[in-house]
């Protein structure tokens, strides 16, 4: 049941995401091109850059792209088998998921460390709150910030549910609840990643 509901929600979110982007004249290939070119730029730049500030900026962005890449792999390795088989994650997918999960955890915590200040809500954002439905650069910026913090909040149950499973603290029934929490958090996280991307690209076109 969960698999069907999740599948429908993710499908619906994806469709809304792409149709909204299309309305703004942005194709999926533009999104992919953006990420690939940006990540290529970062990878091609020298680590021993003389400008330490520039290097740090590049490092920050490399963490961003690493997080996105890890998210994509974790998303595919978990949702694909569970949605299509309806069973618990197992086999090669489980190995991939478990191996890359710590990388994702480290990446997302660094991401928060590096970007949280930039996404700090300021007075302008509070003023934008009553006008949140409006579509202008300032409001969109607030939306991006809010989505960022929602993602940060969701990542807490996403990771802590797994930590609780890994330690022999909870019984099987509680573990099942943890799995459900992990799944729901992962689903919400995925949706808000799409929302974040939408607002980032949306604000560029506005």
């Amino acid at each position: 049941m969960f698999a069907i509901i999740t599948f429908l929600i993710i499908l619906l979110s994806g469709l809304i995401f792409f149709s909204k982007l299309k309305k703004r004249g942005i194709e999926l290939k533009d999104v992919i091109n953006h990420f690939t070119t940006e990540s290529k730029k970062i990878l091609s730049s020298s680590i021993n850059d003389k400008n330490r500030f520039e290097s740090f900026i590049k490092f920050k962005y490399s963490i961003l792209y690493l997080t996105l890449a890890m998210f994509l792999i974790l998303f595919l390795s978990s949702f694909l088998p569970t949605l299509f088989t309806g069973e618990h994650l197992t086999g090669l997918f489980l190995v991939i998921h478990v191996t890359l999960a710590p990388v994702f955890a480290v990446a997302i915590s660094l991401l928060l460390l590096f970007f949280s200040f930039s996404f700090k809500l300021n007075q302008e954002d509070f003023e934008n709150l009553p006008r949140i439905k409006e579509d202008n650069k300032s409001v969109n910026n607030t939306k991006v910030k809010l989505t960022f913090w929602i993602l940060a909040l969701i990542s807490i149950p996403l990771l802590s549910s797994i930590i609780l499973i890994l330690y022999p603290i909870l019984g099987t029934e509680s573990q099942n609840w943890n799995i459900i929490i992990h799944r729901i958090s992962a689903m919400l996280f995925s949706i808000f990643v799409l929302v974040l991307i939408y607002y980032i690209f949306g604000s560029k076109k506005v």
Partner: protein
Amino acid sequence: MNKFNSQLNYFVTFMLCIATSLLGQINDSTISESDSLGIDSTKNEAKQIIYKIGDLADGNKSVPVHLIKLFDENGYSIHKGDQYTVPFSTKNTCGDCHTYELIKQGTHFAFDTSDTTKHKGEPFIYSNHKSLTVLPLSYGNFQGTINPDSIGISPFQFTKMFGSHITGGNLTENEELQKINNYLRWQVSGKLEINCLVCHDSDPEYDQAEFAKQIKNENFRWAGSAASSIANVKGFASKMPDNFDPYNTNTFVDVDLRTTPAPSVTYTTEKFNEDNKVFFDIDKNIKNERCLFCHTTTLNSDDKKFITEQQDVHITSGMKCVACHKNDIGHNITAGYEDEHLVKNDKNLFSFTCEGCHISTEENKFSGRFGAPMPYHEGIPSIHFEKLSCTVCHSSYYPEEKTQIVKTSRAHKLGVPGPNKMPSTYPLIQSPVFVRAANGKLEPHNLIWPSYWARKKDNNIIPLDISFVEDNIQPLLGLDSLYNFGEWPQVEDSTLISVLDSINIIFGEDSKIVFISNGKAFEKNGNSLIRVDFDEAKPYTWSIAHNVRPAQQSLGINGCYDCHSIDSDFYFGNVSIISSVKSEGKGNISMSKFEDLNSLYHRIFSFSFYFRPALKIILLISTIAIILIVFSYILSGIKSGAEYFSSDLNSNQENNI
């Protein structure tokens, strides 16, 4: 009167049998499998059954006193001091109050195992090391077993071979099966009726070993009486001539009665009261020892057995086997395996499974009976319960680097006089082997490697009659060792080729003789031996659920590494290949083959567990970092919000001023 009736009955039955056989009514080939088991006929009878006084309980929890009259097989009551003493018949004695026809459809008697295509049970094992034969036998169509009929084991021979550990009934008393070649011997031995006392007699003097002794002597009709404490049986039906009539001494006048007396029974007169009634200490709540006589599994080696061998945790806590393995008057006993309620289409049976008793759900109202504790299973992800049956972690012997060799009551004739008590007595049964069951879950099983001689015709394997093998192949093999323990005997390729050569001549070109061993069919091709894989050669395994170990001794109690390590016995333990062919050596098969798992994947997966501690620490640190950052900004946000609202308020106040 008794004597006259018996003689008349004997004569009439004999004449009828001859007449019907002449008319072609009795023909081995026309007896279908269901006919031979008498399943359909008994079921039809069941529809017309009228319950007797003892079939249905009135609800009183006490056990009725069984002070009853004894009846012989012809229905005549047995009196203290009768001149011609005959054994009492359980069919007529117990059947006076309990419907025998209904009971005989039960699990132990009818061999009606319609659900066993999925759930394989313990077979009867014919083992003869001198002819290199190990055959799992069953009338129940367990996949991988052989029907005794197909290898020339008649019901009479079957009863004599395995009767020590069967309860009698149906197969051992079905007149349809008393074929012409065994007919006269059946008349001498009598039928082996359902021996109700084997389970229900709580009298400590009841002696199942004596029952086994009587079966060996072919005293089938006397066996039940002999085992009870009220009668003493002497004599050998096996030594009596075909025309033996216990009431007519002229029929065994040529037998030396000093050394081989005719079967006779003497009753303990003190057991009869003035009304010629006898007290039976009958209990519905069967003693565990009664079950364990036929259902014991023990380590084959005496090495440290006193430490490793232990009783089932349920038994230790005071429960009885029948607490879970229950039945009604139909005697269809619940096996308790996971899907029994689905197979038998009775949802109530679920409560007799491990899960049904220990896990409470809304649908299952019967959980927790006998105070069954609810398992917490700390730290065990639920995927384990999808992939493993409860018995994997909690039952049987703890897996070791090499599977252990065990003895079972039925395979090794435990409990009867004169078994070989040496370690590694044949047949060699390995345990536990983790096997993927029909429901996709892993279960611990016992395993034997079949080894037998067969004909290969149109790519079908047809086992040879055991009498043919004993008469023609056994002498050629020259394995005349009396020792039936230790390493299973092996022969050279040359011996095998020579035997196959000799036997092929007997069968001509119609079919080819093959030898089945260690999962392969060996056949002669030119001057060499070729090995072909055949399904019929695969090892036979059957699930085991006992002994249940306590939680502290379950698999996984020491953490994930009990199973998820690169050298875990659960995944990579060795199952011995027991071959009768020397050139095949003494190899092993990894447990993962039986588990139907990819060995490489599980080694990689198990390897990843070495990094689990690091993974846990990384995740923990990352999560703490995220929590700190998020909450510090939340606090900061609250502060900003407060500043914003308070500044807004200040500006409004200024405007008002």
